[in-house]
């Protein structure tokens, strides 16, 4: 029996069920019938696990990939440090971007806007 362990990104992520279904469908279509999926939460999922290829695919799709080492961007951390997060626009590459909201269309993303090309975009938060 093939056992596949799957680590969810965020505990409440509704896509987890779809991801599981995709994995199962793909394996079955490759002739693997005897399989089981297991959820594992430890070690906790982190964006550090994203491959270079994965990051590039995100950017091409229009989602700015996570900028490592910048998981904290809010006021609590800003009270203690002043580091500014520079997220490049996935469309035009400009550094002149600004955060619109800590949460985008899903928990893993924040909503940004580019001040050069004026397009809104999702930023995959460092997690």
């Amino acid at each position, binding site marked *: 029996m093939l056992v596949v362990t799957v680590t*969810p990104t*965020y*505990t*409440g*992520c*509704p896509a987890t069920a779809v991801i599981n279904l995709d994995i199962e469908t793909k394996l079955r279509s490759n002739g693997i019938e005897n399989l089981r999926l297991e959820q594992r*939460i*430890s*070690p*906790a*999922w982190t964006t550090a696990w994203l491959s270079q290829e994965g990051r590039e695919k995100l950017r091409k799709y229009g989602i700015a990939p996570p900028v490592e080492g910048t*998981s*904290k*961007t*809010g*006021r*609590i*951390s800003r*009270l203690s440090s002043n580091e500014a997060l520079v997220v490049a626009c996935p469309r035009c590459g400009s550094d002149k971007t600004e955060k*619109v*909201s*800590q*949460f*985008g*269309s*899903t*928990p893993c993303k924040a*909503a940004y806007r580019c001040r050069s090309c004026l397009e809104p975009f999702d930023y995959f*938060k460092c*997690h």
Partner: protein
Amino acid sequence: MTEPGDKIANDVFFDWLLRRGDTALVLGHRVSEWCGHSPVLEEDIALANIALDLIGQARLWLSLAGEVEGKGRGENELAYLRDAWDFRNLLLAEQPNGDFGQTMMRQFLIDAYQSQLLKALATSADNRVAEIAVKAGKEVDYHLDRSADLVIRLGDGTSESRQRMQAALESLWPYSGEMFKGDAVDQAVVAAKIAPSPEGLRTEWLSTVDAVFTEATLSKPETDFAHTGGLTGRHTEHLGHILADMQFLQRAYPGATW
């Protein structure tokens, strides 16, 4: 499988796990009530996402609670088929949303506490607890950044927003003391090295809330009076209404799935 948590009586550990799971579940349900009603679209999306995180965390805690209880109850039975007196959430979590500012104040007071508690639980002697704490802690840190940011923005905002935030703080403050009042259940988990004592979390929590209130130009109430009872099943009148809404479907159509 033998876990270090075996040293503690199962029913006591179960009770403590319900406190974690029920607080996340009830707060998650409260926050979800904003879906479609927030002041702006970005806030609506943010609140829905935070509610999802909290309900996801509740699932992990309640699944573990069911496993520890060992009576065949899972996350769904625990969430949908218990009545108010069996819930062990903080009274603060079930308080009504009020206006947007009041919701943010409630969220900030709980986020600051959860963030500290989960950090401490990351080194719990019970692996299962530590795993959930690490996972949930990363999410709660985002929630805290955001709720602190909004408490500051609204507190140090217009005279109208400041007055509303001060009123929210005064009405919710007496519910915050419950987070730091330990009882026999806490003593048992402390002895089993599963969790820290609630009293020990208060100093750091106060330094977080003091820093944010100062920047938000809000005055912390002088009183130390604390409403308690939620953690032992004596709730305010609000919980019954939440459950009526949340549990209706499973009560009316037992076992329904889709």
